[in-house]
């Protein structure tokens, strides 16, 4: 397992972990590792981190602002003491062995002194050069000295040698020098040289992401011939408020507003001439683009969306697709356009086969968006050579064992995550990043030094308030509606306010530094930020306060974006007035805030995994490999969960029993306590200190992992399942395939997809894995002499090798019938199902099929313990009944309760690689949580003012956590609140008849000050 530390005797710098690529996956891996105590070197090729996610306007299905949720992570990585950010750098060599690699990194010169640059941008304004900005997908311009975007992390300008006039001849010859002259910090130096750095690293994580395919070679789609044909990424930048058009949807040819749009899916994807795989995210991101485009440009009347199979497979995606159809009015056309040419009136003509008539048709539109294939990022073959790892024939890095290990490359000690190993959505990338982190961490051994969290700075609560107010523009998001400047001017006049200003992006790295300096310089003892929501950004600003020596509880936020500018965009004046009120309320609350100190509690450095399926097993293994104690609990008498119902596995064809056997052997080789036939009966405690009661024993544990899986839905009352013996489910058919016997010549097996999934009522979502199960089964049946037909609505073979499987099935002779979404198959027979009637949407007629066996692909439901556990642990469930993750994009491994994690099908249906990635990812999170022998408790709890307490016991009755306890001493009875148990809800405080209880940080005084000031004349 862990590599032995070098025993040379003399102190050497700790071996770190090299993370290559600073997109969301690389950042996530770096943060997990940094928190677990490892030294991380994050190497990013471009001048700033953030990757593709930073380019996106919104994330789906919540339409949450992409940079808003990403930016706090970027800043956290930049500030993390264990993470070295090496931007504008590339890895040039990797030598040595796993556990003891030597990596060489070339840090290219920016010709700007990184420590001196303040990111003011004066240099860029005087630069005479203008080249297309890569970050804007070539749509906007930048100078030869530039930052890719306003929120660049780090915010340091870079001179691009390729385009700078001073390097026209290849070497430096002073020609221009305008930027150097303009720089107020004299940070520009054309003679700074490249730097070679050598790093001792134990392991490597590759997170190099993807590029968008240039669709120019697909000549019939005319990209490059017409300005009004954009790629998906170009359109995304156009939709972005910070993008080249400020978020306005326009025709690039003349700047006018389009009234009609065509979206073309699978451009270069699922196409053997270009890239045969499915790019996995395009179907839904285009729906999002339609919804956002309509919002930004209500003039758009028609959205013609051309697709092949609608692959809306993630949580909430199916519902999102319906929202696009029903609310935005997107016209979904199942057809691939044959050509795009110039039509009448400067419009573009899209020719296609109309699926409703099976005849040629055409439509004229103003703008066309081509959703192009996601391809391996440029430089992948070179980096593969440097790292000594293999690439797949499709260009992505090769996984050694795509089924059994979703992160291992072909070289030991080198791990892959995110889109480096194939197209992926954000939550899958993030989960995989954590998984790669868990594996990489095992090579570091004892070379870990978790960041100690010392006591918070404390200020004198009685000091005269000196409040600083920072009002955010959030680019156009706030300032487009609210007059941020006027709000800042208003704030400056409020009593107690010593300083007030407005910022373009208050969350950006440079503004954090600025706030820190201002707090010190202006001796501020309270800070108010008027920006977005405290739910996402309060931690960042609090950290900035702490860094400036200000207690973080002397901070408050006014939400003038999510709850003001965004919801009152039609009444800007009122929105500005409301913002002023919100700022005033926050400032008055701030005056009454008190500094709080966090409390350190010892923790139990062990984890308890609930569920012994493949996810639970993997998770327990990866936690144990970090040297932590693990207990695994399975309610059945045997381990294996859902995997026990499977025969052979796609894509390797390996036997499920072999995979399971190998994992169980690995589990048993490690010091992991396994309890079978046991369930949790009660849970008490809190993060780091859970007490779990089983039938016959009690356990203490620091973390709980929900890996409780799911159960296949029984298709009762559907499609003859109750009536006919030869109508069975996929799991039943899997057992039939368990043997090796051949089918009778010509025996017809018909698969029916989505039986009880993607429905209007009940189970509205997609169950994610069923299409591939049926494809695999149909292919196998055909190989063994049967005929097979799959009746489906869309074939959703979106996974890494899913499209190959679909193609193999078609080539092997499996037939496909696409039925209508709202019409069931008619199963008829007498004792046995004999014929099926269905409307074939390709032939546009009813067809009758004779069948010997009907296999129903049923969705996965939450396991029967989910609801009970949810209640016991207070973990909320989604509308689908599965456990709800902390954040749909960036928090797929955590729950809302600190110390409780989730993985595998407990979250929603998943295939084996995705479940394994999540399981290993959770192990990284657990490793970070348990890296120190203590956790710091939230200090905003309640306490009892003893002199006022009459020991009535009201609070004792109310509290669900048993925090208040009745006590007695020589002076009499009283109540005391156990801080470790108190969650800070404050319900006891509002019920105390003598107001003896104070809810810290939400005191009566603080709440009332907001009310009072609001109505002050």
């Amino acid at each position: 397992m862990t590599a032995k530390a070098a025993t040379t005797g003399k102190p050497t710098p700790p071996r770190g972990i090299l993370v290559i690529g600073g997109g969301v996956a690389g950042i996530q891996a770096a943060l997990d590792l940094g928190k677990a105590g490892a030294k991380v070197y994050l190497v990013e090729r471009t001048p700033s981190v953030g990757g593709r996610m930073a380019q996106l306007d919104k994330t789906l299905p919540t339409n949450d602002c992409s940079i808003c949720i990403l930016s706090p992570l970027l800043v956290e990585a930049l500030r993390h003491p264990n993470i070295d950010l090496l931007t504008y750098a590339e890895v040039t060599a990797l030598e040595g062995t796993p556990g003891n690699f030597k990596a060489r990194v070339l840090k290219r010169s920016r010709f700007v002194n990184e420590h001196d640059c303040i990111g003011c941008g004066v240099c860029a304004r005087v630069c005479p050069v203008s080249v297309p900005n890569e970050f804007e997908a070539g749509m906007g311009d930048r100078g030869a000295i530039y930052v890719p975007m306003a929120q660049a992390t780090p915010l340091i300008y870079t001179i691009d040698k390729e385009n700078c006039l001073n390097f026209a001849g290849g070497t430096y010859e002073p020609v221009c020098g305008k930027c150097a002259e303009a720089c107020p910090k004299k940070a520009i130096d054309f003679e700074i040289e490249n730097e070679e750095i050598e790093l001792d690293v134990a392991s490597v994580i590759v997170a190099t992401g993807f590029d968008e395919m240039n669709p120019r070679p697909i000549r019939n789609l005319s990209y490059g011939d017409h300005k009004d044909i954009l790629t998906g990424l170009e359109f995304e930048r156009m939709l972005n408020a910070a993008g080249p058009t400020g978020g306005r949807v326009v025709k690039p040819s003349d700047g006018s507003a389009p009234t009609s749009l065509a979206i073309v899916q699978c451009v270069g994807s699922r196409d053997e001439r270009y890239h045969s795989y499915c790019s996995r995210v395009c179907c839904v991101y285009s729906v999002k683009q339609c919804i956002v485009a309509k919002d930004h440009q209500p003039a758009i009347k028609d959205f013609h969306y051309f697709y092949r199979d609608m692959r809306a497979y993630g949580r909430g995606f199916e519902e999102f697709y319906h929202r696009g159809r029903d609310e935005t009015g997107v016209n979904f056309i199942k057809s691939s356009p044959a050509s795009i040419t110039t039509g009448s009136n400067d419009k573009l003509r899209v020719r296609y086969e109309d699926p409703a008539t099976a005849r040629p048709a055409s439509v004229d539109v103003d703008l066309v968006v081509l959703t192009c294939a996601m391809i391996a990022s440029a430089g992948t073959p070179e980096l593969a050579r440097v790292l000594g790892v293999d690439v797949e024939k499709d260009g992505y890095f090769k996984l050694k064992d795509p089924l059994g290990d979703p992160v291992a490359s072909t070289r030991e000690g080198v791990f892959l995550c995110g889109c480096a190993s194939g197209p992926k959505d954000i939550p899958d990338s993030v989960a995989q990043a954590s998984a790669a982190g868990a594996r990489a961490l095992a090579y570091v051994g004892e070379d870990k030094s978790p960041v100690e969290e010392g006591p918070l700075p404390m200020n004198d609560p009685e000091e005269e308030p000196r409040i600083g107010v920072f009002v955010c523009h959030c680019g156009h998001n706030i300032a487009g509606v609210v007059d941020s400047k006027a709000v800042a001017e208003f704030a400056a006049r409020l009593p107690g306010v010593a300083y007030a200003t407005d910022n373009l992006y208050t969350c950006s790295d440079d503004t954090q530094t600025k706030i820190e300096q201002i707090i010190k310089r202006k001796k501020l003892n309270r800070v108010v930020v008027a920006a977005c929501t405290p739910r996402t950004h309060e931690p960042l600003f609090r950290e900035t306060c702490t860094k400036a020596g200000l207690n973080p509880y002397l901070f408050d936020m006014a939400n003038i974006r999510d709850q003001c500018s965004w919801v009152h965009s039609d009444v800007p004046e009122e929105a500005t007035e409301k913002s002023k009120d919100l700022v005033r309320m926050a400032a008055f609350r701030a005056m009454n805030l008190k500094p709080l100190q966090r409390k350190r509690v010892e923790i139990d450095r062990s984890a308890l995994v609930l569920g012994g399926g493949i996810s639970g097993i993997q998770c327990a293994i990866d936690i144990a490999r970090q040297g932590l104690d693990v207990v695994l609990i399975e309610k059945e008498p045997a381990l294996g969960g859902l995997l026990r119902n499977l025969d052979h596995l796609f894509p390797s064809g390996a036997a499920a029993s072999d995979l399971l056997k190998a994992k169980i052997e690995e589990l048993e080789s490690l010091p992991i306590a396994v309890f079978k036939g046991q369930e949790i009966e009660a849970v008490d405690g809190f993060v780091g200190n859970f007490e779990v009661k089983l039938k016959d024993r009690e356990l203490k544990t620091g973390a709980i992992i929900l890996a409780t899986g799911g159960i296949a839905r029984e298709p009762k009352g559907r499609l003859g399942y109750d009536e006919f013996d030869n109508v069975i489910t996929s799991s039943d058919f899997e057992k039939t395939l368990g043997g090796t016997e051949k089918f009778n010549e010509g025996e017809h097996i018909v698969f029916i997809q989505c039986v009880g999934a993607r429905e209007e009522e009940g189970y509205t979502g997609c169950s994610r894995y069923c299409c591939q199960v049926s494809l695999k089964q149909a292919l196998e049946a055909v190989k063994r002499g049967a005929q097979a037909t799959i009746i489906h609505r869309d074939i959703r073979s979106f996974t890494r090798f899913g499209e190959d499987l679909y193609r193999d099935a078609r080539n092997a002779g499996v037939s496909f019938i696409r039925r209508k979404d709202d019409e069931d198959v008619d199963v008829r027979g007498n004792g046995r199902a004999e014929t099926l009637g269905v409307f074939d949407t390709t032939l546009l007629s009813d067809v009758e099929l004779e069948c010997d066996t009907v296999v129903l692909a049923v969705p996965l439901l939450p396991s029967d313990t989910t609801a009970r556990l949810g209640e016991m642990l207070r973990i909320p469930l989604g509308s689908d009944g599965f456990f709800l993750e902390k954040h749909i994009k960036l928090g797929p491994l955590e729950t809302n309760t600190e110390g409780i994690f989730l993985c595998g099908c407990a979250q929603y249906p998943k295939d084996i690689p995705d479940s394994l990635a999540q399981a290993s990812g959770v192990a990284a999170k657990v490793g970070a949580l348990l890296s120190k022998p203590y956790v710091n408790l939230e200090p905003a709890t309640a306490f009892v003012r003893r002199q006022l307490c009459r020991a009535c016991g009201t609070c004792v009755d109310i509290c669900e956590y048993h925090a208040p306890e009745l006590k007695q001493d020589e002076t009499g009875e009283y109540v005391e609140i156990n801080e470790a148990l108190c969650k800070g809800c404050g319900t006891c405080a509002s019920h105390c008849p003598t107001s003896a209880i104070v809810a810290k940080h939400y005191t009566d005084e603080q709440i009332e000050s907001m009310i009072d000031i609001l109505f002050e004349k």
Partner: protein
Amino acid sequence: MADFEPRIVAFACNWCSYAGADLAGVSRLQYPPNIRTIRVMCSGRVSPGHIIRAFEHGADGVFVSGCHINDCHYGFGNRWAEKQIEKTLKLVEMLGIEPDRLKLEWISASEGEKFATSIRTFVERIKELGRSPLQR
């Protein structure tokens, strides 16, 4: 009273309703700008004293929102809030304030739409009632 713009204090719990209000924003759902929201960790934190104080100082309406029953982040804080509001309604009536001026709604983190609609409806109702009797 055609141009009467009511002034409303809203309380929202951090975990559900405040997140629902954020979602209304993220989804760009428009509602009238008459509310000023105070974030509390749980609807159970809102005391009769806070509500009465808001009315006394000039609020035309008070809107309290929390997680749906059984969804409370803290177990049953919202059930306690429900009881508090029932109690407070009696106080409100004793002060001669119409009970419709105090509204309790359960709004989850995924109900941006419900947040926007509830505010719209509440503002309309307060407009019908006119200025608070304590302010006339």
